[in-house]
């Protein structure tokens, strides 16, 4: 088990405001869900997830007004560990990426990666009526972009092999392992004909691929020009 803890410090003063904003939005949404589950009860939480989770089958059947759920589902989570790990991955990788894109571009990039994850889910599992929630597609996009832009960056990682270790693994190893794991899971899901895993594997793969492809589109102009000049 590999859990990234920190990918290093930003080199310039300032805060990754978009990342912080996204995390706060997720936490607020989660607090609302907790209130629905324990404060309101009577299946209010499940009704909320059905209403705002991303359900590919509804879009395929043309039930109107559902594309918004691709956006809303990115801020909903099913439990504490779900949101914790998604936000941990986001906090580990996003600040360095946001440094290269700027906050507004980063937010658009993040949203777009989430949508690409949803799009791949719709294309490969279009009949599913199970609502999908979670930021993992968008976070996977951040990871894909990180792999492209900082392949050699050392990431402090918590590794459990019987005992916990805290090595600083190169990003390409950590993210490479992760995406290979997802690809194997995707292959197994394709062979099984249905998603038995309960993991949004298509959202992960779509988001990651989107991050890889779109990363350079969202770099700040000065970063692009510096990099071109340096080549």
């Amino acid at each position, binding site marked *: 088990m590999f859990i990234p803890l920190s990918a290093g410090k930003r080199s*310039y003063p300032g805060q990754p405001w978009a990342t912080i904003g996204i995390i706060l939005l997720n936490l607020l949404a989660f607090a609302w869900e907790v209130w629905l589950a324990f404060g309101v009860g009577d299946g209010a939480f499940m009704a909320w997830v059905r209403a705002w989770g991303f359900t590919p089958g509804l879009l395929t059947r*043309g039930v109107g007004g559902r594309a918004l759920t*691709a956006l809303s589902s990115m801020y909903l989570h099913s439990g504490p560990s779900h949101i914790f790990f998604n936000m941990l991955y986001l906090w580990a990788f996003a600040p360095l990426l946001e440094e290269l894109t700027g906050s507004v571009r980063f937010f*658009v990039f993040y949203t777009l990666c989430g949508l690409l994850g949803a799009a791949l889910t719709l294309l490969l599992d*279009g009949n599913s009526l199970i609502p999908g929630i979670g930021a993992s597609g968008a976070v996977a996009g951040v990871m894909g972009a990180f792999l492209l832009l900082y392949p050699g960056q050392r990431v402090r990682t918590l590794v459990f092999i019987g005992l916990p270790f805290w090595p600083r693994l190169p990003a390409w190893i950590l993210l490479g392992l992760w995406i290979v794991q997802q690809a194997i899971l995707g292959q197994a899901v394709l062979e099984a004909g249905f998603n038995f895993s309960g993991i949004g594997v298509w959202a992960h793969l779509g988001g990651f691929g989107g991050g890889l492809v779109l990363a350079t589109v969202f770099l700040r102009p*000065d970063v692009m*020009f510096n990099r071109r*000049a340096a080549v």
Partner: protein
Amino acid sequence: MAALPPEELDVPGLVQAGITAYRAGDRRRARQLLTAATQRDPRHELAWLWLSAAHDDAAFKRICLEKVLALNPQNPNARRGLQLLDGGAPRPVSVFSTPEAPLPGPAGPAAPVARPPAATMRGRPAPVLTPSCPWCQAEFTRPLADRCPRCGRRLEFDCPECERGVSVNLEACAQCGRIFGKFHAEREPYLARLLEAYRAKGWVDQALLVNDYLLELAPAAARYHLAAAQLYDQIGDTTRSVNAYRRLLDLEPGQAEALTQLARWYLTLHQTPELKDLSQRLRALKPRTARLTLLLGDIDYELDDVKSAERTYRELLRRPELDAATRARLHLRLGEINLERGRPAPALRDYEASLAAGVDTEDTQAARRRLDSLRPPLPRRALASYGETGRAMLGPVLLVWLLAALQVGFQVARLNLAGLLGLVLAVLGSYLLAAAQVTPLTPEWRELLGEAGLAQPVPKALATVIGGGLVAAALVLVLAGM
């Protein structure tokens, strides 16, 4: 068989391996193996018998033979051995004495009683016995092992040639013949030669042990403190290495290596008071090599004497012999200095020069990240680039179009007029936003609004608001109109 570690052998195996080692002339290993055998099985008659042969000391031989007779009073070899001992070597044996007659041993398969000691067979002096410690002068009636039981110091060192143990009483290795000299008469040169040999072999642990003894013999000898510092550095024991360098500086305040190594260490730890102290002494060193100059520059930089550091770095950059990695590092440092002094333009030039050094080091990576994060003013060609306009448009356009695709479930037939209008508005709005925020100097805007194009505050604000509004309208049309 003999090569197996003793713990993997059973008692008969140990005895057999001990006998084999004895016959091969490796008496030290024979002693080890046979002692292990007698410890595991104190009633093993043959083990005691061969152990008596493997030991050089008459007193110990006697003990072994008496053990044999206690187990088997009729053992003829033990009886004969004891008779020989009674008529031969005196007890206790003096430190430098050589046995006058061959000492007894078991009359086993190899009849070692009748054989002379291995060293004598090779025509070398027979081993001198060690009933007293040459370090602490303590007298012992029992034979000493490889360490003195009282002071704990080594009485045997590994031969750097054949890696076998050699007693300090021997002037040469009994196995390979390597000359060691007289330990009792001249301990320091003996150990100094051993130290050099171990260092040449890369045996750091043994070299450290010998060096410790040398420091004990000559505590004011700077060369042994230097050796200790280098050896500890070699094994990564920085604290001890630094302490050794400190002691060296106490003895020789101008010792160049100690000064530079300590300065590097203090630089790493940002210990400015110590650096200040060293700085003056380092400046007195001659010749002023590139490495030394770089170190002085780094110290100045650490001590916030930025002007002096900058002068030193620039002076260093003029040296043609400088390698690319150092050049990259110097430019990075100069960039940092310029940035700290509020001069971003020269800082950028220095970061670019660091990258231009053409190496991939931590310094160039830092320079790249600095360049990325400095947000230097874009060149005019970037502000007028259609490529940049397209790149900036892509984000909002993709966002709206992808949402539209999701809204219709990737079924183009379900796209209606509102949706189509949304797609078009997204392009228009994105173009305005991109032009206002990223490329205000494209030709059409300069033709329309003059040389400053959309960079003027009012047109820029208007284009931003209208562009943002169009993108928002496109989102509404796509999400609510289809």
